[in-house]
């Protein structure tokens, strides 16, 4: 196992011993269960509400974990000075960042799998048909979470934990709004506001592209080509951010 693998496995082990994660996943289970209660209130769209709520819960908890751990992943090591002995080992700074990221990605994958299992269990308990569109939606949620983690990690290599959280959250919200904003702007006038929206549109990740929850909940299957393209887009965006994170991290003093 190379140095990246060693770091990744250890980062995974760290998160396994972190109680916050269990609480969050438990909370996700609770939310999914809650969807059943809400569904009972609306008689007509019973199935759709359960699927909708479940996907939203998985997405929300996944993003919270990604931001939470993503911003502290590297910062915590610097603040606690655990990084000194690690950087004194035969491992490059870029390998360290990549190892940390992969470890967190592994953690998120396991968490998502658990949440997905709870979700599927709830669906089958209430005889909601399980469609392949749901798997597509969860797969793209996972890609979105990989992007968010990369954003958090990128900011945390040069700002404080708090600022990283704010920036990451901001970019996440913008990432979901830019497409809409731009559509609005196309009809509107051209001015400094439009340029700003354009800039954001090109810089921020287009996270709406990874959001097919609405159609998935009603069983509309997306074209496989679309899922592949959207995933590629997300992975490439994360890759660019990680490269940036490595470059910034390379220059840092500890």
């Amino acid at each position, binding site marked *: 196992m190379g140095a990246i693998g060693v770091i990744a496995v250890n980062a995974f082990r760290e998160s396994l011993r972190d109680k916050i994660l269990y609480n969050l996943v438990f909370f996700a289970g609770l939310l999914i269960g809650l969807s059943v209660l809400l569904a009972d209130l609306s008689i007509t769209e019973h199935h759709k509400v359960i699927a909708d709520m479940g996907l939203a819960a998985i997405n929300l908890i996944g993003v919270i974990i990604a931001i939470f751990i993503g911003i502290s992943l590297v910062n915590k090591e610097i603040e606690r000075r655990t990084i000194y*002995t690690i950087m004194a080992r035969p491992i490059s700074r870029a390998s360290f960042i990549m190892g940390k990221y992969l470890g967190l990605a592994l953690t998120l994958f396991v968490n998502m799998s658990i949440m997905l299992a709870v979700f599927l269990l709830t669906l089958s308990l209430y005889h909601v048909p399980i469609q392949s569109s749901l798997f597509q939606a969860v797969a793209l949620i996972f890609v979105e979470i990989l992007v968010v983690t990369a954003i958090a990690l990128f900011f945390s290599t040069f700002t404080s934990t708090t600022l990283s959280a704010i920036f990451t959250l901001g970019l996440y919200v913008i990432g979901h709004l830019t497409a809409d904003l731009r559509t609005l702007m196309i009809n509107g006038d051209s001015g400094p506001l439009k340029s700003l929206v354009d800039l954001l549109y090109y810089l921020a990740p287009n996270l709406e592209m990874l959001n097919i929850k609405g159609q998935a909940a009603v069983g509309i299957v997306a074209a496989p080509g679309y899922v592949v393209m959207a995933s590629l887009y997300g992975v490439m965006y994360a890759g660019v951010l990680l490269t940036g994170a490595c470059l910034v991290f390379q220059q840092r003093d*500890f």
Partner: protein
Amino acid sequence: MDDIVTENLTKSYASGWPGRPPFVALDGLSLAVRRGEIFGFLGPNGAGKTTTLKILLGLVRATSGHAFLLGQPVGDVATRRRIGFLPESPYFYDYLTAEEFLGFYGQLAGLDRAAINQRVTDLLGLVGLAEARTRQLRKFSKGMLQRVGLAQALIHDPELIILDEPMTGLDPVGRKQVRDLILSLRDCGKTVFFSTHILHDVEMICDRVGIVMKGRLVASGRVDELVRQDHTRSVEVVCQQLKVEGNAFIHSLATRVLQQGQQCLIVLPSPDAVDALVGEIRRQGGQLLSVTPHKASLEDLFFQEATQQASRPLSHMTSGRAS
């Protein structure tokens, strides 16, 4: 061959305020540590010891100058396989047990599982933590962390061991154990470079020392050589039935004059003045009781350098001159 070489190492930290000049932590520091020796890196708080060590390990970039470890420029990743490092007041992944922790560092160094198991057992025994093998590090005391940190630095059997204040936080027994450990490392042909402000430890085990103050190397060499240089500086002369008050000649020779009842203690800065003083005592009808070359230690040298540094603009004033 020199295992550690620094040439004109300078590090300035940005002050964080525009317009305020950067803080110079290291100011042209050059030193060399030879293969197979124990080198003590001495200096008061804030002298720049940790900064130097961080530059050597590639944790901090020097503003200017060069540094080499085992003949390779610092920052060379592969060289670090042959180097062990213990930072000051270390803090480690506290969710790991001692065993997992050392295993992790062994893996980073590329050891296989069998080698790791063997080394972990040996080293935990060596640093006196055999019973704490499966305890999580967050349940470790400060001294225990220091010990497991030392084991971490040695897990891959490095050639060059760099320790930042390895004795800090240890009880007297632990301190002795670490001293013995460092000596045994040298016996195995390793090079040990450690920083400290505990002079006693240095005097006992170091082959050579470097004294750093305000980011500059103010002295370096064998302990006995450094102390001998200092040795020539002070001689204590005790006499009685001598009226020193108002004797301008004696006051001009001495760095300190103390009248205690009948007896009088006169401290001379060097043995050169002894003849002149003894002659003067005779002339004045005093009775000579003793002439003692002051037994200097590293501590005297250290304090002397420290006071010189502190009062650099006023260096013509000698401290403690009687008035």
